[in-house]
């Protein structure tokens, strides 16, 4: 137990802490303070902060729309608002959360900030392109948001033809154009990451010394590059279909709406892994730090990231089992979908094996990480139900699906986002947040989330379809429960916004490495200097060189 003893207690919080570096002329936050120095910056750290602020705004908008949806569903007869308003609200929620929050969330913020630090580089390979990507993102997102709010769109985030092309009377066209534009920002970010990880690593930083966070972002960036252009084409065709009736998705001329779904899901299923993989990267950093233990099965976790990014391109048809695609296609897509479980399980087993016999400290980031693991398992396993052809017939397009993907997207990605935000907050801002408030919020979010979404599994299994404004009266109890959970969840979201902002001015100044964590980003100041490292960083012998190694925990066991 000697290894655990030396790192326990308060000594761990500030181990051999160098002096806080916040406020020095050298750090990136204080290097320059004009508005121009922010909006024309090419510093990856500042661009990350630009992204962080904007996507937080989008998260709030998406969350308010979710609140409106849950409000409407308190009563079964749809009396609270018109069906039109309800449709527009769930579309705002879906479009904003998927396209403007979840997809850029972790890569554009933490990835942007941390990848150069973690690999020991001064910046990303193409800093101007990086800034461009933010402006492209804001332009597209603003365009779509204006059309969602002023005109309203009622197609849901998937924009399925022919509803979006022939039947909807809402502002679909500008919304589509905005989403298309946002795709380019994803491509630019992914391209920058791929090139940076290949060419900008510090001398000695070999692939198998990279943190899993970097591996996960590499895999994500490949998906950005390989999948996003296809949704661009699909959306262009949709825009042409709506604007000029070109006919390729229109059955009246012999076109095939299912073809849109193929193109759409060729991107949008891999996009699930754009949203999930970076979160897995975050968890792979938090868990070893708060167990003070080397990540178990490092190579397997790294390979699993690449594996997930590849397998995910072979399974999109599981979104289309009941839409008339061929039986052969359904069979093939169903069988391949089960393969996704393998790399996912590899990750979960390795995180739990890392926790096992570690020297655990349940600080806020770790609470989020533990919540993530549990919810991801539930979300992932229910995915297997949905991938099963016969069961899918029963629960397709019901609240079971809604609950399933919220367990992955919220229980997974949002918890990882919040966990990562707390973990690296000292690094980003140079300030410590309030730990007690952090823990209270983490627990609130976990509870609120489960109260909101677990009842939806039951509702879906009982047969309540998604996207309807009304439902049979016997479903009311579970719906009210779900809406009540949403208020707890909302409270859990509001607290961090308050205490994190408060900490910017009143928080304790953070040392360079408040968690005694490993990784090059902790070797530099909090916040880091403008060019990341004052002297070239020394690349460690092995990644995750924590006091406890798997070998030691086996010895203790024996």
């Amino acid at each position, binding site marked *: 137990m000697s290894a655990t003893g030396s790192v326990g207690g308060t000594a761990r919080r500030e181990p051999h802490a160098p002096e806080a570096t916040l406020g020095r002329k050298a750090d990136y936050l204080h290097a320059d303070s004009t508005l121009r120095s922010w909006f024309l910056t090419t510093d990856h750290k500042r661009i990350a902060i630009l992204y962080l602020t904007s996507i937080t705004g989008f998260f709030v908008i998406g969350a308010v729309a979710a609140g409106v949806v849950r409000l409407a569903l308190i009563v079964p007869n749809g009396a609270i608002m018109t069906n039109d308003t309800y449709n527009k609200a769930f579309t705002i929620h879906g479009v904003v959360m998927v396209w403007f929050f979840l997809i850029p969330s972790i890569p554009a913020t933490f990835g942007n900030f941390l990848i150069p630090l973690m690999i020991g*580089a*001064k*910046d*990303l*390979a*193409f*800093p101007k392109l990086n800034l461009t990507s933010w402006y492209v993102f804001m332009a597209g997102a603003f365009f779509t948001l204006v059309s969602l709010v002023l005109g309203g769109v009622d197609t849901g985030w998937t924009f399925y033809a022919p509803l979006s092309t022939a039947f909807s009377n809402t502002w679909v066209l500008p919304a589509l154009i905005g989403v298309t534009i946002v795709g380019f920002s994803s*491509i630019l970010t*992914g*391209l*920058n990451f*791929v*090139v*940076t990880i*290949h*060419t*900008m690593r510090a001398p000695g930083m070999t692939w198998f010394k990279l943190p899993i966070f970097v591996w996960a972002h590499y895999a994500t960036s490949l998906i950005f*590059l*390989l*999948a*996003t*252009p*296809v949704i*661009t*084409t*699909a959306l*262009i*065709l949709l825009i*042409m279909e709506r604007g*000029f*009736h*070109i*006919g*390729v998705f229109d059955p*009246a*001329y*012999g*076109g*095939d709406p299912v*073809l849109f779904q193929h*193109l759409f899901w*060729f991107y949008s299923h891999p996009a699930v892994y754009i949203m999930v993989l970076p979160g897995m990267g975050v968890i792979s950093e938090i868990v070893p730090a708060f167990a003070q233990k080397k990540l178990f099965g490092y190579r397997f976790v790294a390979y699993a990231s690449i594996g997930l990014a590849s397998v995910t391109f072979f399974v999109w048809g599981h979104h289309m089992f009941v839409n008339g695609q061929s039986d052969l296609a359904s069979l093939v897509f169903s069988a391949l979908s089960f393969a996704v479980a393998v790399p996912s399980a590899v990750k979960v087993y390795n995180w739990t094996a890392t926790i096992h016999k570690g020297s655990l400290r349940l600080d806020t980031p770790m609470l989020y990480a533990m919540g993530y693991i549990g919810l991801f398992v539930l979300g992932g396993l229910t995915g297997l139900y949905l991938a099963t052809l016969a069961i899918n017939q029963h629960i397709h397009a019901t609240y079971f699906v809604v609950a399933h993907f919220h367990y992955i997207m919220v229980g997974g990605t949002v918890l990882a986002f919040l966990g990562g935000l707390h973990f690296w907050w000292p690094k980003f801002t140079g300030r410590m947040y309030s730990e007690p408030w952090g823990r209270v919020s983490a627990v609130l979010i976990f509870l609120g989330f489960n109260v909101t979404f677990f009842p939806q599994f039951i509702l879906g299994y009982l047969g309540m379809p998604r996207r309807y404004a009304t439902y049979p009266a016997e479903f009311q109890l579970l719906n009210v429960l779900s809406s009540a959970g949403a208020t707890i969840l909302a409270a859990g979201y509001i607290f961090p916004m308050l205490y994190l902002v408060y900490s910017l001015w009143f928080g304790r100044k953070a040392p360079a490495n408040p968690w005694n964590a490993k990784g090059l980003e902790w070797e530099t100041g909090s916040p880091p200097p403008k*060019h990341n490292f004052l002297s070239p960083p020394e690349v460690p012998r092995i990644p995750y060189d924590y006091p406890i190694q798997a070998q030691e925990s086996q010895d203790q066991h024996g």
Partner: protein
Amino acid sequence: MSEGLADGVGVARAGHFETVGQQRAAATLGIWAWLITELLLFSALFLVALITRILHPEATVAAAKHLKFWIGATNTVVLICSSLTMSMAIEFSRIGWQRAMVRAMLATAALGSLFLVLKGYEYYADWDEHMMPFLSNRPFALAETPPARLFVNLYYVATILHAAHLFTGIALLLGMTWMAAKAGFLSRHQNWIEVYGLYWHFIDLVWILAFPILYVVNR
């Protein structure tokens, strides 16, 4: 491709790179990553063309026979010529013949523009023959076979998307030529020519794919 560079030709290192070699490698990898996205962008359209052919073989053949085969073929020759002049520009940049390089770049831009002019004429001929089904006020020549509309419209989406890439390419090329004509350009930014050349060749490659897929194999 740093081998075979003449004296005084090279790349000035930007601050965030450690070496010029690293900077060149990043630029080359970056353009290839971008070209992957271009390939998938167009391939999705080619996939739609294939599905259209599978679902409606007769209508697709009827539509394809109406396309201006000879203009398409001529345009392919034009782009193959422009690929040659682009390759020449790259070689001239490597041996430091700046004037020759600038002329080869201008020739490339001229050939690209010729392609667009021919394309414009082709659209005019299509319009003349009532082959613009997306125009609601002009009856479609093949209106009796509704699915023919799918392939013809797809032809417009694909060729306009390609023309947009070519137009952007010409604009970038002219801007770069203006800079490349200045003294000292080749000692600081020689690899811009190489990176741009990859883009130009790839836009040609997309047309080399689009021409047979749209005009030839469905005849």
